[in-house]
């Protein structure tokens, strides 16, 4: 299977800042979000992040599509100040939290089981040797508290800097550092590794 060149990238996209579309009004307190450009550039990446957080692709697609649908419905309103991509990422994270809360309620009252995060199908040997180890990592990641999981995904999949993670999650830089350190330590313990 050919590898997706955009998959697993660790660098922050340089063109993350969205620009207003031609003909759109510019409100005083923030530029409108250019939904089309954000969608085109970051849709797949946001779905991947959501898959890592909610564990299954259909829910992840729903979460990201709902975010863009809401943005589209509010396209005439002022957008957020600052980095629009960070804003959309924060919306996706909020959507993931809501999906997980709903799933917890459904599970508690007789809903269906969740599924493991989608792993690509590769060779049989790969499946046996590597996929099992990855599932262990993902299962350990899933067992972490939500905030730690989010910090680790933003850092080790999107490759965001600590300041960028702080902006997306709306927390302080120190909290990002301590959360990441605790998350890694817990992950190491769960995997039986010395960190």
């Amino acid at each position: 299977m050919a590898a997706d060149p955009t998959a697993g990238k660790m660098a922050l996209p340089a063109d993350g800042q969205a620009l207003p579309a031609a003909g759109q009004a510019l409100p005083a307190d923030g530029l409108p979000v250019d939904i089309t450009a954000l969608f085109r550039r970051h849709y797949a990446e946001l779905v991947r992040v959501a898959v890592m957080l909610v564990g299954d692709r259909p829910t992840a697609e729903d979460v990201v599509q709902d975010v863009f649908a809401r943005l589209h419905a509010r396209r005439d309103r002022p957008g957020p100040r600052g980095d629009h991509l960070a804003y959309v990422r924060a919306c996706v994270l909020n959507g993931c939290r809501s999906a997980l809360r709903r799933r917890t309620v459904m599970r508690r009252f007789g809903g269906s089981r969740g599924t493991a995060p989608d792993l690509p199908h590769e060779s049989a040997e790969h499946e046996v040797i590597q996929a099992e180890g990855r599932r262990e990592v993902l299962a350990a990641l899933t067992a972490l508290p939500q905030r730690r999981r989010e910090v680790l995904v933003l850092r080790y999949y999107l490759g965001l800097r600590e300041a960028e993670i702080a902006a997306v999650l709306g927390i302080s830089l120190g909290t990002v550092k301590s959360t990441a350190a605790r998350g890694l330590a817990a992950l190491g313990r769960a995997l039986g590794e010395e960190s």
Partner: protein
Amino acid sequence: MTRTEERLADALAAVARGVREETLPPLGGRDTARGGRGTAQWRHARRKWARWLAPVAAAAAVTLVVILASTVHLFAPRPQPGGTARPPGGLPRYYVSAESTGIQVRKTATGAVTARIGLFAGSPGPAAFVMGLAAGDNGREFVAEYTGQGPNGGIETWLYSFHLTGAGRVGGLALVKGGLLPGLQGGSAVAVSPDGSKVALTVYRPVRFRQPDLLQIAVINLRTGARSYWAGGLDRPGFHVSIPSISWAPGGDSLVFLSQWCRAVTPTGFCGPGVPAPRVRTLRVTGGGGQLSSGRVLLHGLVELSNVVQALLTPDGKAVDVVALSGQYRGKAHPVPQDLLLARLPLTPGGHARLLYHSDHGVVRSGGVVFLSSDASGRYLLLTSRRNGWIDHGRLRPLAQPSGAFTDAW
């Protein structure tokens, strides 16, 4: 980058590779492509009320259950003193606990001890411990597994059976036919077949100095004393195989067991810290022995159920009851996750999982030792860990906690 960071980045990249851009649906097009649930905008509007549906339905169901339970309670005949150890279809009147000082029989209602079997009773060796306990014959017959040093100094395992009288006394304590297993250390998983004719238990056979012991499932025919052993086929480099629970399929020809791959195994067969990659497997045991891997996998670990520590097939064979741990690890010597979830997972297509019990109040004992056992109907589940009790409509009804009890049966 540390090893953990490398593994995390690799796993996340693998997930990302599974989401290829060209396979993603266009905005608003996912549902029309997969069954027509409407556009994202419509879904968003619909969810405003749909998210309340589950809690409201659940509240209505709980109310109904409470009303029904109250009605049933009011009109149900009260249990009579004496009689059998177990009223048909009802809550067992006695439960049996294995603990560090032996075996105790207690009244379910009051916790009063009705009988004791001493630690060394019946065992020929100078030191023996109860390793496992299982009920058979609808809660009347029990099998207890002792392990310890035999008369010649080597490790031995003994399997004893006894029955409970209507007053909760112990009778007929005797070594079962074929129940002396020389050179084997007992594990913690024991199960009696539905017809009471066979016992399956985990045993460890020492292989070589500083080598992990060979884990086996021994099946003993209680009528003839014939034994068969099932081992191997599940090995994985760098991991120990652990089998913390065994149950019988209806008909008594097959077992369903939980296997785990552990970085380290405690003396009672439980995984140390780490995610154990659980598998619920079947094993047909009609032959004279063979590989543990000769059956098939019934269930894999799931996202919410990645750390499954117990798995029992229900007596009707239609579902598996699993105990899974999650959440933050706590504890000094052997940190364990503190959230415990008991769920019934259907094996039939289209069935829904049922959450039977959930606790995030630190009910898990140090080392992650959790035992689940069931009565013959599958209706009354016993959970043993830091607290022990039976599951009653989503609640843990506490039982008297014997000192150091690590497994209960009824």
